[in-house]
């Protein structure tokens, strides 16, 4: 892997992080502006705006867990320090996104389902479990005092939580659920389809004026995650270096 080398990663991320950041600001700016200017939905009224936040945030929260879990896997199996740093870096960001997903979901649930929270809904539940895994990861990281050991233990936990991602995604198909089944991916595919000249999206799911802000805010949030992640990996790498130097110096003294 190209980025597996720390030096190469550092020089890559030095440029990539700001680029992702700018992309994120741009796309989110346009996406949210569009989202706020589209007319109210005749059924949902104002709350339709959450359509441009909730699904995207939720999907990115899953991406964040996937990023953490896969990094954890490389950290555990190949003892790769950069992968360790990547996993550690993803956790708080992912927890933030997951929390937002839960929050926006329940704000949306009030008008749509008539309840803030539904204990028996599998997707809500599994998303909560995702959040608990993030919390457990961070708790473990801070409770075991040897940093290398803590990272490894937390990474094992992150891997244990990976199957839950599938449950989050497919729960709407496996169990009957209140939650929307139509997927972000179909919307995006439809959008690409329409861009490449297809004109009308063939799925009746989303009204055409909603599609652009829906997709833009998704890519914007994804870039936001990427930017934050890279920045945090960089600071993890710096912190490790500084720590190693300090200990080495103490050893010589």
């Amino acid at each position, binding site marked *: 892997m190209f980025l597996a080398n720390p030096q190469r990663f550092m020089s890559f991320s030095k440029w990539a992080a700001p680029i992702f950041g700018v992309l994120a600001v741009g796309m989110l700016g346009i996406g949210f502006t569009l989202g706020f200017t589209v007319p109210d939905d005749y059924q949902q009224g104002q709350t339709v705006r959450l359509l441009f936040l909730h699904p995207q945030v939720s999907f990115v929260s899953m991406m964040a867990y996937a990023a953490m879990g896969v990094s954890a896997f490389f950290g555990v199996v190949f003892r790769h320090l950069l992968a360790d740093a990547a996993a550690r870096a993803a956790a708080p960001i992912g927890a933030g996104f997951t929390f937002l997903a839960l929050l926006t979901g329940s704000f949306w649930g009030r008008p749509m389902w008539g309840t803030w929270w539904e204990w028996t809904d599998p997707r809500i539940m599994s998303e909560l*479990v995702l959040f608990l*895994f993030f919390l457990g990861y961070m708790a473990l990281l801070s409770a*075991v005092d040897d940093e290398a050991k803590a990272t490894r*233990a937390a990474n*094992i936990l992150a891997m244990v*939580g990976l199957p839950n991602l599938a449950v989050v995604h497919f729960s709407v198909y496996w169990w009957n659920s209140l939650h929307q089944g139509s997927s972000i991916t179909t919307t995006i595919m439809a959008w690409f389809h329409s861009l490449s000249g297809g004109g009308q999206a063939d799925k009746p799911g989303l009204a055409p004026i909603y599609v652009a802000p829906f997709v833009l805010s998704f890519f914007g949030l994804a870039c936001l995650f990427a930017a934050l992640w890279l920045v945090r990996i960089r600071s993890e790498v710096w912190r490790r270096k500084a720590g190693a130097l300090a200990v080495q110096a103490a050893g010589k003294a």
Partner: protein
Amino acid sequence: MNELATLFRRELALAWGRGGGPMLALPFYACIATLLPFAVGGDHAQLAPIATGISWLALALTSLLSLERLFERDFEDGALDLLALGAPSMVATCFIKCLAQWLATGAPLAIAAPIIALGLGAKPELWSLIFTSALLGGLGFAFTGGVGAALAIGSRRGGVLIAVIVLPLFVPPVIFGATAISQAADGLAWQSGFALLGAYSLASVALSPFAMAAACRNALS
């Protein structure tokens, strides 16, 4: 094989020894189930519908408590060093430890579960379902809980940390089991919840020893 049998006997003895094991887990289980009505106010009409759910939650919590010493002790007194130097692999060792844990505390709790649920007002005809799902759920609790216990080794925060790690792992079996029982109580089909509980428990039996072994080796290093 011979070694693993020796280990199994020792783990059982450690769990039962000195008046421990079920002798302590059972009263605890009973106490939780008893305190709750006090806390809630003891109104039977309120209590009966949630009785099985509560007995099920108490089971999860009790499993959690007994788990705490599964690995931490062995780590602190150096027995984990010794376990790592036996002929059997660490994976097999962890498997045996969890199995013994289940037999020593999970199984007696499963026997108590229907009694306590009935005491709280559940329907008598549910007892066999409550018993089997507690038995099966206990298996899942022991193995997934073992992962938490192994990951928390050396953290000096024991119980609470294990709980935080393990709770997301306990959510699915708690839901599956509770759903199965409440479906049965309402005369609906309980089979799918029960099957999911079984699948979850068996999957955790198959997979968690690997996570535990990795966690133990990590703690020793």
